[in-house]
């Protein structure tokens, strides 16, 4: 029979071990991908801040709210796409040059921000 205290301590130890292994695995990630992750995190947190703000003040300029949030979401999605394509581990895109992937990323971003500016009102 397992004691509750030893069980909880083993759970926290498991979580700690998991977290440590995750951190050590992630530290092996190339810096370029880490930068992309930082960028995605920044975009998603900006989107969350806007949603909270909208919940507080109301949805009056709804088009502005949509364009603000969608610009963050769009940026995050495009950055994730870029990360998938430039990841060396990913064999699916091994034929695609990282320069080509980056060019696609830039073009899509330009289109996104053009649309956002039109809709911002």
């Amino acid at each position, binding site marked *: 029979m397992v004691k509750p205290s030893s069980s909880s301590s083993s759970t926290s130890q498991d979580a700690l071990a998991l977290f440590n292994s995750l951190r050590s695995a992630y530290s092996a990630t190339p810096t370029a991908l880490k*930068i*992309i992750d930082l960028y995605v995190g920044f975009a998603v947190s900006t989107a969350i801040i806007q949603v909270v703000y909208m919940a507080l003040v109301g949805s009056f300029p709804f088009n502005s709210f949509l364009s*603000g949030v969608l610009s963050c979401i769009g940026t995050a999605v495009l*950055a994730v796409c870029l990360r998938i394509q430039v990841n060396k581990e990913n064999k699916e895109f091994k034929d695609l040059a990282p320069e080509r992937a980056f060019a696609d990323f830039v073009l899509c971003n330009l289109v996104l*921000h053009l649309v956002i500016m039109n809709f911002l009102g």
Partner: protein
Amino acid sequence: MLKLLLAFLTLTLPFLAHSFSPDHPTDRRVLVLLDDLAVKSSHSLFFKTLQSRGFDLDFKLADDPKIGLQRYGQYTYDALILFSPTVDRFGGSIDLAAILDFVDTGHDLIIAADTNASDLIRQISVECGVDFDEDPSAMVIDHTSYAVSDSEGDHTLIASDDFISSDVILGSKKIEASSILDNAPVLFKGIGHTINSENSLVLKVLSASPSAYSANPNSKLSSPPSLTGSSISLVSVVQARNNARVLISGSLSMFSDRFFRSKVQKAGSPDKHEKSANEQFLTELSKWVFHERGHLKAVNVRHHKVGEADEPAIYRINDDVEYSIEIYEWHGKSWEPYVADDVQVQFYMMSPYVLKTLSTDKKGNYFTAFKVPDVYGVFQFKVEYHRLGYTSVALSKQIPVRPFRHNEYERFIPAAYPYYGAAFTMMTGFFVFTVVHLYNK
């Protein structure tokens, strides 16, 4: 000289006779058709009240072969009085259709029938929505509210005081005897009629009492009378949709001098009135029929945006609009401001989006302000004013309403600054990321 006269005549001829219109409310010529020229003197008091109010009466026998309502396509009379209950055929060019056309073009008509009224008079009445008792010898009999009389014992001389409650039709002064302060009744002796309850244009002005019935007073009543009680109308008026007014009475003698001057005592009542109310009742009623009261005109319909004076060709949604209208009532000699607190304007597209009661300054000016609804389309300003005894005012004016133009929306709303900030932050972030990503190697 002759040329001058001819020129004068051609110039003035079109103005000689008109139906009542806001531009020509006065100088009215009335054709009076009689069975017998003796009526002219026996009913002189009634005719005198008309003449004293400026009407030009033209007395003709109903079968005079030279009479006609029109000449060269123009009506030569403004109103027609038919004091000829027994006439079977009018002389000249007048017939049923001519009289109906006369009313259809907005002219006024007074019909007095009597016992033995001819089919022609009945037909005219039926066309106006009034059905006289079909029995030619029937009269209205009332054994409880008859007028006490020495000579007549069959109770066909009725003293009625069951008037319509409308100041505009009967005048604001209470109908009362000259000497006693309480109400004197109106004397009536003739045939009764009913009005179609579905016809909203016909109004009972003087009704019979609940105990009245319509039958031949000289014969024994073998079957129940067809007309009974207060559904019998003694005097009715019609206001057609074109504002022509018609007065229909089942008694010619109620217009007579004898009834005007008669002392009256209603059966069962101790009050003896020195004078019947006939004169006042019929004078006031004739004023209404000849549009000296209750005729409204609406002029100066204006609408504009708040703060502007000109009427725009189109409104935008959410515009603030001011609407004003002037309503006047004809008082026999001049247009007086009409005062009421129930005139409403609708802003209407399939259904009223805005319904507002107009405020008035008691000088005939009605006005209000409202916001155009947040709906675009083709709207109408509508005033539909229908009141008992008044001519109807029905105005509508079409006006389109457009949505905001592309550049009319609000810009740089303070509440939206975080969203603007986020969008521009994302652009800056994209630029910084690009630089970092490229030079990271």
